[in-house]
């Protein structure tokens, strides 16, 4: 049985009128209308409403016909745009020019298309600096640079060792010691080495200064006093600069000569003490106020010295008042109060 029913026969009817049905389908449709004669009215209605196209002549048909030529009135705009976009081949460009000559009213359109080209305006990005990245310098560490550095270190280290081996004993006699000013003292009671915890610099010929910190505290016996006095009486030039200045060559020679003489007189068991005294070891006495020996004076010691001098001067100047001032000072009262308690 065919697929034509009461519900879809209209579609078949439309296809029949448009001649889209096959011979078999036309036969089926004819059979369907014979079975359902009441529906044949629709067939007649469709036939009545068939549109008949009116007979009209197209205007300017010859103008529109341009089959032989590439460029026509239908597509000339595309060629105009392609021309300003530089897409047309040379032959097409020539043909377009001929077309524009034939149709001069279109030339203005061509000019207008040329004007649609945008000209780049000058715009600057003000925040350009924020975009820049800072360059990080990378220092490459090559193997040969490492080797060179290691060689240099080893060289200086070995050289330092050789120097030590060559001069295992430092001859103090050959040293130039810059001694500070020594104040004259009235009495000698007991000797004391004041060089404790203070740096003493020895200036040696042809060698860099060597810093030695003496921490020994040597209290010589009575017979040593004479020797030490002699050592102290060595000619030491006055020195304004506390940091140390080399002695003159002449004074060194003189000192060496005197050292030789004194060594002859010094007994063997006293040699160490004398040696210390000879080599920038400052001997002060109990009554001394100022620190006479300072090769390198620190700020603290300098301040102490100044304060001591000021206090001393104040006491002497004011005499009794100064003494009373000290006696009645807060620390003194505090000590007294503490003792009472």
């Amino acid at each position, binding site marked *: 049985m065919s697929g034509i029913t009461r519900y879809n026969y209209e579609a078949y009817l439309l296809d029949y009128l448009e001649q889209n049905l096959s011979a078999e389908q036309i036969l089926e449709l004819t059979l369907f209308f014979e079975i359902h004669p009441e529906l044949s009215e629709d067939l007649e209605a469709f036939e009545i409403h068939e549109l008949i196209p009116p007979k009209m002549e197209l205007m300017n048909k010859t103008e529109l016909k341009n089959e032989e030529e590439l460029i026509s009135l239908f597509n000339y*705009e*595309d060629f105009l*745009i392609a021309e*300003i*976009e530089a897409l047309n081949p040379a032959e097409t460009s020539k043909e377009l020019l001929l077309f524009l000559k034939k149709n001069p009213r279109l030339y203005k*359109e061509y000019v*207008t*298309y040329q*004007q*649609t*080209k*945008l*000209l*780049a*305006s000058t*715009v*600057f*990005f003000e*925040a*350009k600096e*924020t*975009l*820049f*990245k*800072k*360059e*990080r310098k990378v220092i490459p560490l090559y193997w040969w640079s490492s080797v060179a550095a290691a060689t240099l270190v080893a060289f200086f280290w070995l050289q330092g060792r050789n120097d030590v081996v060559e001069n295992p004993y430092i001859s103090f006699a050959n040293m130039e010691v810059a001694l500070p000013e020594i104040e004259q003292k009235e009495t000698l009671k007991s000797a004391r080495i004041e060089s404790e915890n203070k740096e003493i610099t020895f200036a040696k010929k042809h060698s860099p200064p060597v810093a030695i910190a003496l921490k020994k505290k040597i209290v010589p016996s009575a017979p040593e006093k004479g020797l030490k006095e002699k050592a102290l009486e060595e000619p030491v030039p006055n020195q304004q600069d506390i940091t140390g200045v080399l002695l003159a060559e002449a004074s060194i020679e003189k000192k060496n000569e005197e050292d030789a003489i004194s060594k002859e007189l010094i007994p063997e068991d006293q040699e160490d003490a004398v040696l210390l005294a000879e080599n920038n070891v400052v001997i002060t006495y109990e009554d001394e106020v100022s620190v006479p020996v300072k090769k390198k004076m620190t700020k603290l010691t300098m301040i102490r010295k100044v304060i001591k001098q000021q206090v001393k001067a104040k006491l002497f100047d004011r005499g009794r008042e100064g003494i009373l001032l000290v006696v009645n000072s807060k620390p003194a009262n505090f000590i007294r109060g503490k003792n009472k308690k």
Partner: protein
Amino acid sequence: MTVSEYNHSVECYSDNLYRFVLKNCKDINKAKDIVQDTFLKFWEKRDTVDPLKIKSYLFTTAYHTLIDVVRREKKQGSFSEVTEESYSISSEYSDLQEVLHQALDKLPDDQKAVILLRDYEGYAYHEISEITGMTESQVKVYIFRGRKFLKNYLVSVEAII
């Protein structure tokens, strides 16, 4: 890519990129932000970017960022802020380029972008298609349509004047 090469790219292309973005979005602050974002992305991917295609990469990134911004704004309803006056033709034009840029603002975003890339930067069709992600024929169609619109706009302005 070294830092100096990156800085050289900034020196060469930041102005052009800024001009392209600014002409599209018409907002100085947004244009600056987009340019900053573009160069930030470029710095992050500097090792993967072909040194011969730095400019193309920058414009591609800027274009896509721009499209995202424009779409986001349209969703937020900024389009409704456009008044009818912007669609009308003003007779106070003194310069042809001024008229042309006014007409450019009336073009759809895609057409505007491709015409700017074509005229300002001189890109070829295939380069524009790489930047915008369109096909080459699509780019060509947009440029043709854009040109026709600009021409008609100029003609209409001339008619008014």
